[in-house]
C-alpha cells in the first residue's frame, strides 16, 4: 500500500517560465518526506508534479521522469487520472466540497472510482476513513451536515479522510497546517505520524520545527536569484539536515541566516 518514488532530472515549466531545474531525488515508502525552502523556490510546483496536478494549469509541462515503483508517471501511455487515484493530495487551504455533507465528502473519491457501494460498506468506509483522520469522534453525530460547517482544522482532517478513503499509495500535503491554529496543527502532525505506517507521505512546510518533528527525510529547495529556476539543494535524513547539513546554503537557511 505504499510506494517508492524516484524523480529523475525533472525540469518543470509554466509556459516559457522555467520554474524548477533538474530535480533528482528518491522518496522512501512508509516514511514522511518534508520539502522546505524559501517562498517561490518551487516546493509546491515539485509536489504537484508527483500526481500530475501540475499540468492542470494551462501551459504547464515537465520534462524528465517520475518513477513510482519503476513505472514512469509521465510515460505516454499513463493516464493522469489513474496517477491521481494512486497519489492523493491535501491542499494548503481546506477544500471540502461545499455542496456535500461530511459523509458525501468522504465518499466523493470512492464514488468516482468504483461501482455502487452498498450502504453498509460505505458506512464502514466513512467511519474507517474518519477514524483514520482522527475526526470520527467529533463528527459522528452530524455526518449529514455540510462539510463547510466544520472548523478549519476539522475541514483539513476531513480532506485527509477524503484522500485516504480511496486508499492511495502516496499522500501529498502542501502546507496542510498553514491555515490552522496550534492545536489543530498538533492534531494533523499526530495524524501524519500515524499515516506513515501505511502510506508514503510527502509534506511541504514553512515551519522548520514541523519538518523536524514529523519527517524522516527532508529536502531543501532554493533559488539562486529571483527569476531563476528553483532547485533541490540537498536531501537527507531530517536529523542530518537540521544538525549537520552538507551544503552551506542549507545551513544558512535552517539557522535563519538567510537572504
Amino acid at each position, binding site marked *: 500500500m505504499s510506494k517508492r518514488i524516484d524523480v529523475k532530472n525533472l525540469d518543470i515549466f509554466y509556459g516559457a517560465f522555467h520554474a524548477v531545474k533538474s530535480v533528482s531525488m528518491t522518496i522512501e515508502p512508509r516514511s514522511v518526506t518534508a520539502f522546505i525552502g524559501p517562498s517561490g523556490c518551487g516546493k509546491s510546483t515539485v509536489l504537484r508534479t508527483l*500526481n500530475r*496536478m501540475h499540468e*492542470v494549469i494551462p501551459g504547464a509541462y515537465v520534462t524528465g521522469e517520475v518513477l513510482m515503483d519503476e513505472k514512469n508517471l509521465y510515460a505516454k501511455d499513463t493516464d493522469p*487520472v*489513474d496517477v*491521481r*487515484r494512486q497519489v*492523493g*493530495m491535501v*491542499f494548503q*487551504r481546506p*477544500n*471540502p*466540497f*461545499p*455542496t*456535500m*455533507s461530511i459523509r458525501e465528502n468522504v465518499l*466523493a*473519491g470512492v464514488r*468516482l*472510482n468504483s461501482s455502487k457501494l452498498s450502504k453498509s460498506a460505505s458506512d464502514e468506509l466513512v467511519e474507517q476513513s474518519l477514524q483514520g483522520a482522527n475526526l470520527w469522534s467529533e463528527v459522528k453525530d452530524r455526518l449529514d451536515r*455540510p462539510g*463547510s*460547517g466544520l472548523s478549519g482544522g476539522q475541514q483539513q482532517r476531513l*480532506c485527509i479522510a*477524503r*484522500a485516504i478513503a*480511496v486508499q492511495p499509495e502516496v499522500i501529498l500535503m502542501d502546507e496542510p497546517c498553514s491555515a490552522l491554529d496550534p492545536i489543530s496543527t498538533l492534531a494533523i502532525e499526530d495524524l501524519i505520524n500515524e499515516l506513515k505506517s501505511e502510506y508514503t507521505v510527502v509534506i511541504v512546510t514553512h515551519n522548520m520545527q514541523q519538518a523536524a518533528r514529523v519527517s524522516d527525510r527532508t529536502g531543501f529547495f532554493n533559488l539562486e536569484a529571483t527569476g531563476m529556476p528553483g532547485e533541490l539543494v540537498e536531501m537527507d535524513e531530517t536529523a542530518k539536515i537540521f544538525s549537520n547539513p552538507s551544503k552551506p546554503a542549507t545551513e544558512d537557511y535552517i539557522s535563519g541566516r538567510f537572504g
Partner: protein
Amino acid sequence: MTATSAPEAQARPKRRPGDIVFGGLSTASAFSILLILAGVAIFLISEAVPVFGADPAEITGGEGFLSYVWPLVFGTLVASLVAMAVATPVAVGIALFVSHYAPTRVGTAVGFVIDLLAAVPSVVFGMWGFQVFAPKLVPLFIWLQEHLGFLPFFESASRTGRTLFTASLVLAVMILPIITAVSREVFLQTPTLHEEAALALGATKWEMIRTAVLPFGKPGVIGGTMLGLGRALGETMAVAIILSPGVFTWNLIDSGNTTVPAEIALNFPEAAGLRLSELIAAGLVLFGITLAVNLGARAIVNRRAEFSGAN
C-alpha cells in the same frame, strides 16, 4: 481627526453631504419600485373587479371567467415549460463548453454570439418563426403524428406549422441567451480549489464538472432558468405572430390553444367594457403566476443555502 473634538461629536459620527444625498437617492429608488409595483397591482385588481361580479353568461364563452381563462393559462404554461425544458439543457451545455471545454478564444467568441442572440427583438423572432421555422417543422409534425399519434399531444399535424409547439421552440431560442449567460457566469466562478480537489481525487474532466462545477452552479442555473421562464411566460409578440390561435386542445402540433399575453395583445385594441375587464383579469392571473414562479425559484435556491458554497 482632531484630539479636541467634543464627546457628543464622537457618539454621533459626522454626516457627510455625499452620504446623505446618495443614501437618500438609493432609498428613494427602492421605494419607487415598491410604489410602481403596488400601482400596477392596484390597476389590475380594480379594473378586473367587474368580471368577478358579472353574470357568467356575459363572459366570453358564456360560462364564466374561470372557464374562459384556464385554457389561456394552460397554453401559457405549456408553451413556457416546453421552452424551458428544451432551452435549459442546451444552455447548460453551451455554458459548460464556453467555461470549461473551449479554448479561451473560441469560448469568448461563442459567448459573444449567444449575447447577440439576446439582442434580436422578439418581433423579429416572431416573423422568422412564422416565415421560416414553422414550415420547416411540418415534416416533423407529420412524422410525430404518424409514429406517436396515439398520444393526445400529437393527434393531428398542422400543414402550416403555426402551432403551440412551434411557438414553444421559438420561445426556447429566445430564452436560451439569458439561461446560458447566467450559467456561464456561475460556472466560471467555481473555485479552482474545488475543481482541483476533484481532479486530485482522480476525477476525469466530466466527473470534475459533476462533483465541483455543477453542484456549485446549480442555484445560479435555477435562477437563470427562472429568468428565462419569466420571459417565456410574458412573451407576447413572437407567440401572437406564430401561433394560429384557437380553442383548447391537448394537441400541440396543430392550430389551437393560445397564451394569455397573445390573447391580450390580439384583442386589446377593440376591447371595451366587460371584455376589457376580462383581458385585464387575465393579465392579473398571469401576474400572479409569474410572481409564484419567482417565489418558488427563490425557495428552491434557498432550500439548500447552507450547502451552497457561499459560506
